[in-house]
């Protein structure tokens, strides 16, 4: 059955947003760009150690070959092409090719397990799948019996698969070859297919991050996506053709779609692809992009990486760094309070910028960075202060997959660390009396695929209900405290946002993740923390503390002392009722394969609360220790029982 029938607009679009009919779909934009930019670089990919360029014309020709190849295989308008792979030009050729012949593309996370893939592909009614390599193909073939709807599995990199004879398998090159033959026979077919596309056709399925329940597939039209790009560009007009961008975050993420497809087609900058995920950091540095869009974990990771490197540095360098950073943070704090920065401080920051900040930023590839956006989930104010102190124009982006990614962004010079910025062009944001953030724009999605109940909950009278608890700042900026469902209401009726406390705990290089829970008395807050192996490992080595594994290290008395000190420091900056009274150091990291994090690395609180129910109860009761047994799942699908005793520490306020 074709997917097109289910893709119906549940209600008329709330906000009109007319588009130029010659450029109202991605395939039409690509055709325009191929004509306008011709041999200018669209993509650059590092391959065999060398950056190789792909022109706009080549992008168009490759997408055409692939799209017509799909047609030759029997692909119909409204069919779904699922895409699983690292970001590479071929993935984009496939996506644009499929869209050109009326297809809907659906990106899946590469690290999904085979069973998850089977479930999602069957739910999406995907008929064709693009796989990057043997690894992804093997996963699909393992669950092939559960996927009778799949017609063809298209494999880009055939390496290692010389013995594969599965009838559904076909190589990417073969599909393109069939497309070229079809083009030779019917030279005007492709243009007719592109012309048949409409702005209100569904372009992509996008898996929502699903911190709450099973993933939902948001259906977004070209109009949704293109309006998003234009309205965002209207408030960030400095993004231009000559800019460089590095694409390394999952293609399945709306943020990556937003930049590497929508904005790329609209503006025409260069998108660079790293050689391998392992080389991404080095390649990022080589390109030194002009802007970047990443979820909070990337910035948290960069901060940790710098902090760990500085722990390794010599005494003098460490002192200089600490001093220079403190100077920067001080200046940033003054500015954020609207107070004048003294002249001596500004004068001092000039040499410091050249001698400390810039060399440091060069190491992480931020030397040319004009703006860095944080999206997906909010980033703690401490991180903002850190990056701004170094001179990075870090800005918060707020939005949902259901609004094509972005509804708010900080404006230059008005970056308030505790807000989500203000709405982009043609976008309204309000807060309901219950405190829920709702928004309306031409980018609000048309619904979840095959899930009318969830659609009805999210879309009411043209407004998108975010499920986020927040308020509006007097300046007009949106403030988000937490997910509506995650806000903790204390026994006295006051509300606590666990995220705020967690962000403060995570800011130290030693804590990777933290989850704050409230005890049964409605007053005592406790935290489950996971240590950051790199930095705590290094810290332990420096002190001659021997350890064998993550689990072992996490329970060392000295490590618990270290964590206790951190919690006490954080408590000192919190109101008494927000303070964390007990904590436990978990014997493992939270991981998406254990369903504890989403694929974009957000905590799945409901799930964690369920999974660690007994541990959380023990925290609530204030027991001194907890015997845990848990099934750990590895990436190859095997499982193992872990039994260990976790120490529960009480934290008293510093005298």
């Amino acid at each position, binding site marked *: 059955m074709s997917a097109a029938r289910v893709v119906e607009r549940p209600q008329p679009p709330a906000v009109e947003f007319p588009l130029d009919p010659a450029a109202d779909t991605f395939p039409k934009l690509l055709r325009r760009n191929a004509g306008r930019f011709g041999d200018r670089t669209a993509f650059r990919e590092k*391959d*065999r*150690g*060398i950056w190789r360029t792909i022109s706009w014309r080549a992008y168009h020709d490759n997408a055409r070959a692939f799209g017509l190849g799909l047609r030759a295989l029997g692909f119909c308008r409204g069919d779904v092409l699922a895409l699983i792979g690292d970001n590479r030009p071929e993935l984009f050729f496939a996506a644009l090719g499929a869209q050109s012949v009326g297809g809907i593309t659906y990106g899946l996370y590469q690290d999904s397990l085979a069973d998850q893939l089977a479930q999602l592909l069957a739910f999406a009614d995907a008929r064709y799948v693009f796989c990057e390599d043997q690894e992804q193909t093997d996963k699909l073939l393992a669950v092939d019996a559960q996927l009778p709807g799949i017609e063809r599995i298209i494999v880009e990199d055939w*390496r*290692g698969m*010389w013995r594969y004879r599965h009838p559904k398998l076909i190589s990417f090159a073969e599909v393109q070859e069939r497309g070229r033959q079809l083009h030779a026979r019917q030279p005007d077919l492709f243009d007719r297919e592109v012309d048949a596309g409409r702005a209100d056709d569904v372009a992509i399925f996008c898996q929502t991050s699903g911190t709450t329940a099973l993933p939902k597939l948001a259906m977004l039209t070209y109009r949704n996506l293109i309006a998003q790009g234009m309205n965002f560009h209207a408030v960030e007009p400095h993004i231009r053709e000559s800019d460089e961008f590095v694409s390394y975050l999952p293609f399945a993420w709306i943020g990556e779609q937003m930049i590497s497809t929508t904005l790329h087609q609209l503006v025409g900058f260069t998108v660079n692809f790293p050689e391998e995920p392992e*080389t991404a950091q080095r390649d990022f540095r080589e390109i030194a992009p002009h802007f970047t869009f990443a979820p909070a974990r990337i910035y948290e990771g960069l901060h940790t990486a710098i902090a760990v490197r500085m722990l390794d540095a010599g005494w003098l360098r460490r002192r200089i760094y600490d001093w220079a950073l403190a100077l920067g943070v001080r200046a940033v704090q003054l500015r954020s309070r609207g107070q004048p920065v003294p002249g001596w401080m500004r004068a001092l920051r000039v040499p410091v910028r050249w001698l400390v900040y810039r060399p440091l930023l060069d190491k992480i590839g931020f030397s040319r960075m004009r703006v860095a956006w944080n999206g997906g989930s909010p980033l703690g104010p401490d991180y903002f202060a850190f990056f701004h102190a170094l001179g990075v124009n870090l800005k918060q982006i707020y939005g949902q997959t259901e609004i094509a990614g972005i509804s708010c962004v900080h404006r230059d010079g008005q970056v308030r660390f505790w807000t989500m910025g203000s709405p982009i062009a043609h976008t309204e944001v309000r807060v309901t009396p219950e405190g829920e953030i709702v928004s309306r724009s031409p980018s609000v999605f048309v619904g979840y695929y095959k899930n009318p109940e969830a659609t009805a909950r999210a879309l009411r009278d043209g407004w998108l209900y975010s499920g986020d608890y927040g308020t509006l700042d007097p300046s007009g900026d949106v403030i988000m405290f937490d997910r509506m469902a995650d806000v903790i209401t204390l026994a006295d009726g006051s509300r606590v946002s666990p995220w705020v406390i967690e962000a403060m705990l995570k800011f130290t290089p030693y804590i990777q993740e933290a989850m704050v829970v409230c005890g049964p008395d409605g007053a005592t807050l406790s935290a489950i923390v996971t240590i950051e192996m790199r930095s705590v490992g290094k810290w332990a080595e420096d002190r001659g503390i021997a350890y064998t594994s993550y689990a072992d290290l996490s329970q060392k008395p000295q490590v618990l002392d270290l964590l206790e000190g951190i919690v006490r420091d954080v408590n000192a900056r919190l109101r008494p009722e927000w303070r964390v009274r007990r904590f436990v150091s978990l014997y493992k990291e939270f991981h998406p394969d254990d369903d504890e994090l989403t694929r974009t690395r957000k905590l799945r609180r409901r799930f964690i609360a369920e999974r660690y129910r007994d541990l959380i109860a023990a925290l609530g009761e204030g027991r001194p220790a907890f015997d845990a047994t848990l099934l750990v799942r590895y990436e190859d699908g095997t499982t193992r029982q872990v039994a260990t005793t976790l120490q529960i520490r009480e934290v008293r306020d510093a005298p």
Partner: protein
Amino acid sequence: MQAARKYTAMGGGEPILRVEDLHLSFRGIQAVAGVGFDLAPGEILGIIGPNGAGKTSVLNCINGFYRPQRGRILFRGRDITPLPPHARAALGIGRTFQNIALYPGMTVLDNIMTGRAVRMSAGVLACAVYAGPARREHVAHRAVVEEIIDFLEIEAVRHHPVADLPYGIQKKVELGRALALDPQVLILDEPMAGMSLDEKVDIARYLLELKEVRGLPIVLIEHDMGVVMDLCDRVMVMDYGRVIAAGRPADVQRHPDVIRAYLGEAS
């Protein structure tokens, strides 16, 4: 001569490598005593046997480190027994070592590049100037090396000095250097020794791909019986410098002499 006929490759056809009646002794200690075998195109031959059985000595004779007192080594029908090691390398006999023999201070890229040395023609002076043909040649060699880096999936460590790298990666680099020679035959001395299971699986995959896709014949010494039995088309068992059995892995496993050599005398 008899030995050679006895172990003719199963695939038939002209053998790439033929070892005939090899004898090697050090001051009266007989290391190799009458070893012979053929290696057919696209074949993986495993040599197994207890420590001191003379396996590595056979490989050293093939690539010219040792000069056998008796016997011949024929490469594509040509007698290479009198040739020095570098001349054999130039003919296309690539080899890795039991103990890693890389240049520790040099990067992965440069180490693999040294494998191209026998294929380079530009002189020292031309290379120093780095212009014209020397430059073009360097670029061409670099392209070959990059193909190998891609094949072995070691892009991420391309510019790392090998001394800093884990053992398993160093073994990969050594394989890479042997491949940089454009070998006609690959001789590997315990390519998977000391590796984790994951790394062994990786190496096995590379070797199978070299065999299946490029038809490269391989002689390897390996102690992991699981690997040998899965990977090799034929196995040759040595003990006290002699071949005590040879044939398909499954047959060799059941051979009474092999069981005796490995498990001791049952009597």
